[in-house]
């Protein structure tokens, strides 16, 4: 007898993207719909939580319907609904969570909750197998910079994290200093490609055995460099400054990831999160892990930013483990990965 395919609907509303997707058997993407609000938030130079929540409630059913139509699935076909429980903006999370619960009740479909970062990691599984454990994940985004060790599916141990700003946060702050439009990260990446990293900026290695990160000192150094140059009437090439900043971030990210991979004897390194879309970072990681016997997996750009396909993929793991959420599920803005 042929086993029924596992079909999961993923829903993600943790920040400024309203997203729904359908994933088959945990690895096969059938549809991936994202309604981005970036144009709306641009006016304010960053995501405004109340406005994000308003957009989510306007978009939510439209996005889910589109994902289901594109994948050609009906409610009866769904094995489960997977929704981001946290972390994220509380008002934004609530829309996805309540919408998912309403669907689960209306059609008697099992509900699973997903940690947003687990989602970012499992975005990789839609592209390449993730079966080589232990596995190391480098998660870099606007809110996160973490090294996560996975001994098996669905098990997460944070072995390194940022002590101050996340890498993406540092990018945004430096972009604001350079008066670049929001969101600043991609602009710096582009400018860095045009400039050369000849300005001396610090690298925060912290203690020799630590896999933690720190980017606030670097951010301050960039601001000071600009300030001092201005006072002395010296012109600084912004492309060179962007390149130097990016060089400093990437060098630390790549080296710490490599050292952690060696120390824990991992077979596969997975890169995840919005900053994984950064071309400079992708290139340097690829070079560093070449001919090391460690498999490096970086999802394509469109899977690095927030989407619901990754939530469905991570949801599949939870579903297979038999974990279920009930009608009391709530959005949890500070949800921790290790507790999850």
């Amino acid at each position, binding site marked *: 007898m042929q086993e029924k395919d596992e079909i999961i609907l993923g829903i993600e509303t943790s920040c400024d993207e309203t997203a729904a997707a359908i994933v088959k058997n945990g690895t096969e993407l059938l549809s991936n719909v994202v309604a981005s609000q970036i144009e709306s938030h641009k*006016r*304010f130079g960053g995501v*405004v939580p*109340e*406005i994000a*929540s*308003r957009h989510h*409630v*306007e978009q*939510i*059913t*439209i996005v*889910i*319907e589109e994902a289901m139509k594109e994948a050609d699935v009906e*409610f009866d076909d769904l094995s489960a609904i997977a929704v981001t429980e946290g972390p994220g903006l509380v*008002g934004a999370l*609530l*829309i996805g*969570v*309540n*919408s998912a*619960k*309403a*669907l689960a*009740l*209306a*059609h008697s479909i099992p509900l699973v909750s997903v940690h947003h970062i687990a989602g970012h990691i499992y975005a990789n599984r839609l592209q390449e197998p993730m079966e080589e454990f232990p596995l190391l994940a480098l998660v870099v985004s606007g809110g996160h910079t973490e090294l996560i060790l996975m001994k098996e599916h669905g098990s997460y141990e944070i072995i390194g994290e940022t002590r101050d700003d996340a890498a993406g946060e540092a990018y945004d702050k430096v972009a604001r200093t350079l008066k670049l439009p929001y969101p600043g990260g991609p602009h710096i990446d582009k400018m860095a490609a045009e400039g050369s990293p000849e300005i001396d900026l610090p690298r925060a290695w912290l203690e020799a055995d630590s896999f933690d990160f720190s980017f606030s000192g670097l951010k301050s150094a960039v601001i000071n460099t600009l300030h001092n140059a201005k006072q002395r009437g010296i012109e600084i090439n912004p492309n060179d400054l962007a390149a130097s900043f990016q060089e400093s971030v990437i060098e630390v990210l790549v080296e710490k990831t490599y050292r952690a991979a060696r120390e824990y004897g991992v077979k596969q390194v997975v890169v995840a999160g919005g900053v994984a879309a950064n071309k400079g970072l992708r290139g340097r990681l690829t070079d560093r892990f070449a001919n090391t016997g460690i498999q490096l997996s970086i999802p394509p750009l469109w899977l690095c930013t927030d989407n619901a396909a990754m939530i469905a993929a991570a949801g599949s793991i939870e579903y297979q483990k038999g974990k279920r959420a009930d*009608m*009391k*599920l*709530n*959005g949890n803005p500070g949800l921790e990965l290790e507790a999850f």
Partner: protein
Amino acid sequence: MKALAIDTSNLVMGVSVISDNKIVGELTTNMKKNHSVRLMPAIANLLGEVDMQPGDLDRIIVARGPGSFTGVRIGVSVAKTMAWSLNIPITGVSSLEVLAQNGKYFDGAVCPLFDGRRGQIYTSLYGNIDNRFQLLQDERIMQLVDWIDTIKDKSRKVLFLGNDLPLHREKIEELLGDRAVFGQAADHNPRASELAALGVARDGENPHTFTPSYLRLAEAEAKWLANQKK
């Protein structure tokens, strides 16, 4: 017609089920407890109590605001999703109109209100004209004192309703004197049964395009618009 009515727009959480113009079930709480956690279990329980499946419903009715922005969105998200996925219409009713129903037999004007912070209130005015209880003044958010100024030249008594009244009662008494009448404890909770009764008599809307009625822009948006005008 069988319909489910949901109100999470303010502190009172209400759910009710109406079947052929008979209210068959109603659940109301008035506590500072998370609607996001409690709404879906309340719906599941009430449907179970009245022996109904979600698939039996012909319509979802929701209090669309004004009220707590987050509160309104919880109810509206659930209502939109249930209506769309069950392929049935959604009907929105003003949260103020629901509350005003508690005074529909009052001989005079009825003023439902929710606190809007910084001296402001969300409010409107209802009353009986030609034996029909209807809207007399459009809903709005404004300073309480300006609102009282708007309604004070009418000679009728005004019944004030709403759980936020303790914040404003003194000022209202000062401005309106004995023309102001205040509801009793049971009159201040909006009732989901009233919401259901209002909703079944109205047109259904498309769940995809259904939006809450906030009556107020997000603060960042208001500031941005003000700056654009400069």
